[in-house]
């Protein structure tokens, strides 16, 4: 068997350059770690590294200061090659207090660098983190390189001229730390300075204090006598295709994709939603987009959200609703009505750990079954899954296209990881996107709501306000011929089959499945869907580099599946299906294609690590 290389510490003491690095900022909820991470990401993108980030925050809004369950973290993986995950093991851990250290130390690679704020290691904070002895004073950090600085003291000195209160002065700790980490990786501070000036435009002295802290942290790195191996590391720029880039989260990309869809269809959107973690940010993102073809409505509950969206679709706009698992469950009856009345509707499911409240801020793929089957009656709908933060843009456009073209609800599966993760995005040229303009039906002669498009089987979409188009639709079974209520047995059979066929035939209107990495035949196919893309990609890449005949196949269209998927899979001796659930997609593969696929299932609320998938590939490969 081939040995799989254990991940090395990327910060080799004697090297001035490193290929790629994982940095994790961890601190108290109030320490501003997300802001720190976002600014570091910005600087890293501008530097020219490829990157991927993952914010990891607690469910509690304001946990007690110093509590382990109040630790908020932000991880960034950046490097000179294509980066598709936020990294497995951490090379540099920033721990702003004992709680952040105790909860994150396990992620730090052996020999990795840990930067701690000594000033926060008070007896009180140590007790809250359940440390009996100060870890900075015993030998518990011996396996790591430790940079222990009294950041409290450093910051207070740095911001003293700005006359802030003690409390406000200490709030600049994160910028001091950011300055130090920016020094470590040779990042430019100007974008952060610009954003601080913008953020605190109304409080110039706060902006100035933060900037002073940032610069002081940087200066500390330059001037202080630091332990061996703690020096500036250069990370070579990544080779990426030319073009205009920006950083984007999955949520933003999804919002932009929905707006793009409405522009391409030349139709107004009503985005109706009810707040739920981790889906709410999509509502926030769209609520601020005035002037485009999108209106938002915060409904009184999940059911009202799907229903008002459907009402908008009946009125000739496109209704879009969004939620996470528990909310999607509540919308099920409404989605079934959209199937029965054949109205377009887009439902975004940002999956989180379940069941019930489960792990609201964590990620999971456990709503696959609900997306495909979680309704009453025979109610097939198209389901598309986004695989990366930037892929959310394309998937949203595709969902809008399918909903309108086939007069059907379409579900988009995203998840907590994709929603919050960010990566650089090559900004598309809107003019290059293919339009799919909607034409509402308006021919009064012989009009009935049951007229269908011969190619798509889609029912006509005639909107209120159009003379001669008056008609009634609803949840009761309708006559195929007239669209009137019908309890006729043969008609029900026909209509049920029609609804099934209408969705099934979409398989001919979507791209054929491709192998996204590796050869088109071989020993092992690693088959994934959704946000596992990045980890599978890297794992397969490493396996191929080690000489294994492994390929990566990633499915966007979960219902209907691409017509050639079975054929593609059959060219491999074995199929491995990693999923963040107990094995839901794999059941489809096994039952539809009679392929003896094997599952790799992680249900920990955290994305797969590359190493976990690689280990499974190696283990599987041994048996082949």
């Amino acid at each position, binding site marked *: 068997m081939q040995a799989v290389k254990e991940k090395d510490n990327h910060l080799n003491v004697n090297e001035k350059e490193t290929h790629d690095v994982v940095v994790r900022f961890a601190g108290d909820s109030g320490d501003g770690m997300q802001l720190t991470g976002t600014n570091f990401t910005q600087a890293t993108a501008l530097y020219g590294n490829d990157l991927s980030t993952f914010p990891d925050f607690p469910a509690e809004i304001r946990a007690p200061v110093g509590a382990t369950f109040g630790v908020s973290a932000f991880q960034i993986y950046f490097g000179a090659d294509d980066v598709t995950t936020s990294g497995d093991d951490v090379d540099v851990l920033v721990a702003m207090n004992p709680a952040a250290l105790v909860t994150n130390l396990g992620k730090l690679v052996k020999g990795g660098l840990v930067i701690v704020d000594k000033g926060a290691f008070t007896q009180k904070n140590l007790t809250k983190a359940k440390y009996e002895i100060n870890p900075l004073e015993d030998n518990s950090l011996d396996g790591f390189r430790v940079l222990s600085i009294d950041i409290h003291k450093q910051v207070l000195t740095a911001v003293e001229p700005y006359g802030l209160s003690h409390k406000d002065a200490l709030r600049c700790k994160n910028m001091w730390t950011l300055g130090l980490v920016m020094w470590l990786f040779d990042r430019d501070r100007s974008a952060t300075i610009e954003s601080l000036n913008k953020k605190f435009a109304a409080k110039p002295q706060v902006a100035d204090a933060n900037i002073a802290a940032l610069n002081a942290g940087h200066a500390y790195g330059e001037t202080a006598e630091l332990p061996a191996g703690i020096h500036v590391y250069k990370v070579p720029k990544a080779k990426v295709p030319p073009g205009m880039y920006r950083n984007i989260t999955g949520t933003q990309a999804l919002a932009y994709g929905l707006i793009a869809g409405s522009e391409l269809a030349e139709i107004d959107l009503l985005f109706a939603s009810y707040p739920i973690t981790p889906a709410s940010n999509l509502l926030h993102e769209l609520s601020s987009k005035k002037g485009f073809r999108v209106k938002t409505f915060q409904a009184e509950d999940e059911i009202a959200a799907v229903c008002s969206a459907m009402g908008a679709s009946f009125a000739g706009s496109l209704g879009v609703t969004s939620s996470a698992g528990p909310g999607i469950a509540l919308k099920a009856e*409404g989605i079934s009505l959209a199937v029965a009345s054949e109205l377009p509707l887009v439902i975004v499911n940002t999956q989180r750990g379940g069941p019930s409240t489960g792990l609201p801020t964590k990620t999971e793929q456990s709503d696959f079954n609900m997306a495909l089957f979680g309704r009453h009656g025979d109610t097939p709908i198209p389901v598309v899954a986004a695989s990366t933060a930037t892929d959310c843009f394309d998937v949203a456009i595709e969902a809008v296209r399918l909903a309108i073209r086939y007069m059907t609800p379409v579900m988009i599966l995203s998840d907590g990881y994709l929603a919050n993760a960010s990566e650089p995005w090559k900004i598309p040229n809107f003019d290059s996107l293919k339009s799919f303009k909607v034409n509402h039906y308006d021919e009064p002669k012989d009009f009935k709501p049951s007229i269908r498009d011969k190619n798509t089987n889609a029912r006509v979409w005639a909107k209120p306000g159009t003379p001669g188009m008056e008609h009634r639709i609803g949840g009761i079974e309708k006559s195929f011929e007239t669209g009137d209520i019908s309890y006729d047995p043969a008609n029900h059979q026909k209509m049920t089959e029609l609804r099934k066929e209408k969705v099934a035939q979409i398989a001919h209107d979507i791209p054929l499945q491709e192998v996204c990495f590796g050869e088109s035949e071989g020993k092992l196919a690693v088959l994934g869907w959704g946000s596992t893309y990045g980890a599978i990609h890297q794992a397969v890449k490493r396996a191929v580099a080690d000489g294994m005949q492994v390929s990566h196949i990633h499915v966007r269209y979960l219902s209907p599946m691409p017509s050639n998927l079975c054929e593609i899979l059959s060219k491999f001796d074995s199929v491995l299906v990693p999923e963040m659930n107990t094995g839901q997609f794999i059941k489809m593969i096994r039952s539809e294609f009679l392929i003896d696929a094997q599952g790799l299932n992680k249900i920990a609320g955290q994305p797969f690590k590359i190493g976990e998938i690689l280990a499974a590939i190696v283990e599987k490969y041994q048996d082949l």
Partner: protein
Amino acid sequence: MNQALPTLTLKDFATDQEVRWCPGCGDYAILKTIQKVMPELNRPKENQVFVSGIGCSSRFPYYMNTFGFHTIHGRAPAIATGVKLANPELDVWVITGDGDGFSIGGNHMMHAIRRNVNLQILLFNNEIYGLTKGQYSPTSQVGTQSPSSPSGSVDAPLSPCLVSLGSGGTFIARSIDTEAKHLSGIVKRGSEHDGTAFIEILQNCPIYNDGVFSQVKDKKLAPEFRVEVHHGEPITFGQENEKGIMLDRQSLSLQVVQCAGNESEILIHDEQNKVQAQLLAEMKGPNFPIAVGVLYKEEKSSFVTDVYKKIDVPKSEPSAFQELLESGNTWEVK
């Protein structure tokens, strides 16, 4: 300036669908009245949208030759809100019943009313579940015997008009299925209201709750048990209009008094008085007549109008979308 609309009649609003309510159902009378009143509203027929939930009354849209959406149980106000948000030019009507509107759909009803969404909500209240064969509803009187309460129901009923008032309703009225003239007058006023027009229609179910409103509907009994309220007029009733409603200022409660000798004490109906509206909505037998008419009306900005004011910015040029995509910090890779 109003565009000239074609002259329409009741027939223009009837469909070819066979009406499937039970013989003698109050819904027939309501349907006839609405079909008759539609041409009188002088609005474009293609702009009329009827949205309903589930229940006997919710079959209503199938019989109106307008746009209609027969949806799911209790959700009509939410769906109607979406219709109106998508196209504010439409006149959106919600047809619902006591179970649909105040049991399974109580939440949506409350929120549509508090938002003051521009809708006409017609609540057919027969104090019973008809379509599911006669179970007691949230408006059934205590002690109602039904298949699910054979020894009489114990739940206290709610008053739809009081709930509407408590939800911040801006137009609250009550009428009766078979009183065509009264009902059409109320519906017309409701359709002119900017905001949610909530109209409770007392409707007889001849199969499962026959005669529940006989006192207010029966020609002989009604004068004693029903009072029609009109803005600015004294609130009087009785065979000879000899009785009136008076406010006891000590207890802040209403009393029935003889008009003779109390002329100056008889309450004058003031639609804009919320406290009075509550007292009137609460009146019921045997000690009080049931009040019908517009109980409360308030001028208040309506939801959809306000939503559109908030988003009233010039529509972006197509190029604006490209600018959005390129917003934030960007960098060029050459």
